[in-house]
């Protein structure tokens, strides 16, 4: 079926307000966390198997490249959690006027940036 409605697929010409940014990042972080699941389960499994395996995982995760991955995953988890809580609150009709939605979107972005920074500092 041919559909004649106009389409705009030039992403660079679409303005992205803060609530929309929080929303797309919520989706991206959710998908990233999904992709990370096997590695997280593997780490959990090894860390519980024996003292040697525990040490092995601890050593592996103290490599700079692994720390970088942990910071990225940390950001994804923090952003997804905070944006998710914001989403749930808005489902309950909390702060659903546009100015308030903008403020809460800014709060989510800012808090996840700060918390991710703290995670990075704690890891290094």
């Amino acid at each position: 079926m041919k559909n004649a409605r106009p389409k705009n697929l030039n992403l660079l010409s679409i303005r992205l307000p803060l609530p929309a940014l929080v929303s797309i990042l919520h989706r991206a972080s959710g998908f990233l966390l999904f992709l990370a699941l096997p590695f997280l389960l593997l780490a959990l499994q090894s860390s519980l198997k024996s003292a040697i395996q525990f040490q092995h995982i601890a050593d592996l995760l103290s490599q700079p490249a692994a720390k970088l991955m942990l910071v990225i995953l940390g950001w994804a988890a923090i952003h997804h959690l905070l944006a998710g809580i914001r989403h749930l609150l808005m489902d309950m009709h909390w702060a659903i006027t546009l100015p308030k939605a903008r403020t809460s979107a800014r709060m989510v972005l800012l808090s996840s940036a700060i918390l991710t920074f703290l995670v990075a500092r704690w890891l290094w």
Partner: protein
Amino acid sequence: MVDRLFSRKYSGMRHWLLQRLTAVLMTLYLMLLGALLFAQHPTQYTAWKALLSPLWLRGATLLFLLSLFFHAWLGVRDIFNDYVHPLVLRSFLHGAVAITLIAYSVWSVNILWSVR
């Protein structure tokens, strides 16, 4: 009236509700785990294993992981529905995600129940 909204006929409502229910369960568990990690600081193997050995916590952890897999199933399925339009490819991806998450569930039981 309200319960009919969540019947099989309105699967979108059920989907919405389950995504939220699992989100709330996961948030509660993460707060609990955060508190335990903060209080016990398990930097050694024995402390880490001791933290996860009580049956109630392993049960809660399993409930968390199963909620997570279910939540991921609903969420990832939505993402594929939005972006992957060829029906064959979309069905294949749905199937692959479902099988993967079921395998993770079995794996999780295995991990948690080998802690002694």
